[in-house]
């Protein structure tokens, strides 16, 4: 009965809300319906707000939106560039001398596709926090790999956006720039981990 008052057209989701919270009480019901209401408890007769509270934190939401698209762009670019040329990608991974030979090809050929997948999920804003956390972990991995190549005195190109392999012109400048760039990307991912709410997204986080 209450459901009719509060949210007439959402009987299906209301029913699911009841499963979680027990039978309907006399004086309130739970709107577990559309994503923007975030499953909040409503007083009988209340009108579900068009704009949920979290959507009104404008500046941080917009920042997160921009971060999401920037990070998606980074992943898409790096993924496509590496997927375009499997031979070069293989050479680039091997040049790090980190992965054992059996893992060189899976990393060189699988990782770019994973990166494109991350980009796609970021564009749609699906599970933003988790994707951002995975991105952060990957950037950490990349920074470690470049740093270790630098420390071991191996002269290679990063191969982060295509190319890669041995590079006799590699110097502390190129390694430093590559690490600085990845730290920048990691900072974007870290922001999204702490503030995953953004506009133009599927779901809140």
């Amino acid at each position, binding site marked *: 009965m209450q459901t009719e008052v509060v949210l007439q057209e959402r009987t299906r989701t209301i029913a699911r*809300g009841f499963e979680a919270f027990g039978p309907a009480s006399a004086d309130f019901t739970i709107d577990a319906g559309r994503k923007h209401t975030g499953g*909040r408890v409503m007083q009988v007769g209340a009108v579900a707000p068009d704009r949920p509270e979290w959507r009104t934190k404008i500046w941080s939401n917009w920042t997160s939106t921009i971060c999401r698209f920037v990070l998606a762009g980074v992943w898409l670019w790096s993924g496509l560039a590496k997927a375009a040329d499997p031979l070069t990608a293989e050479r680039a991974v091997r040049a790090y001398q980190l992965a054992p030979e059996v893992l060189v*090809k899976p990393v060189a*050929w699988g990782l770019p596709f994973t990166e494109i997948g991350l980009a796609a*999920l970021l564009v749609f804003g699906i599970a933003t926090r988790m994707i951002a956390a995975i991105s952060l972990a990957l950037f950490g991995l990349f920074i470690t790999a470049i740093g270790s190549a630098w420390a071991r005195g191996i002269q290679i190109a990063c191969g982060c956006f295509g190319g890669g392999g041995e590079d006799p012109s590699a110097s502390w400048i190129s390694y430093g720039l590559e690490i600085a760039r990845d730290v920048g990307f990691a900072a974007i991912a870290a922001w999204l981990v702490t503030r995953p709410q953004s506009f133009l997204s599927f779901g809140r986080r």
Partner: protein
Amino acid sequence: MAKMQARGPQFSQAATGKNRIEAVRMGTSQGQNRAARRRGDPRRPWWRHPAAILGLLVVVAIIGYFVQSRRSSRMAGTEQRPAHALGPGGSELIGAAGAPVLVEVFSDFECPRCAQFQRTVEPQIRKLVDEGKVRLAYYVALTKMDSLPSANAGICAGEQGAFWPYHDYLFAHQLPENSGSPTSDQLIQFGRKVGINSPAFDACVKNGTYNGWVYQINAQGGARGIRILPAIFVNGRMLSDPSSALTTIQEALKAKD
């Protein structure tokens, strides 16, 4: 009220009236409630579950692996062995049969370091070849996918008996790095320049007849531990520095004497 409490832990006793409403707000009430939500939220669609997302990414990676391995060995098994290439592993071989030292070179027509090697060290090796001291086996390998047409064209030229002049011409007219690769028409024109006037050569360049063979050579190189081109082997031992090839060859010749 008693009815309410029976309903579950998420309904706090302290919370009444408006506060209670506040308290059961999703994700903002007590930790207990939050933990319960995290364990199994019936409203969270299956694709928002961490396992689903991670699984998706892993599946995408596996698909990528198979796509790329198909791409990089598209012709595996169907590769055509060039009849003229009689060197070890199907390489281009020159030199007297009785020469004491075998030098193997893995190189790419479009890699700048390979061109540098071809300019500086190779002429001296070729001199030793002419003197009958060295056999030179040349493997047309790849540093990048873009080099495939010219690598294939090199083998096509070999089929017409003009591998070495064509090889010299390609290196002499190498494009600067990152400015693309010669088209098949250009490669055919290069052939004309070194005196190859054969429709068979044109067809071979256009069809990429030996693409599979080049991949196969590249795989051989990988199996032999090549990490960078050019790679030079003297009597089967890889040199760490291509520019030291000549001294190593001299030492090998001395050891044989």
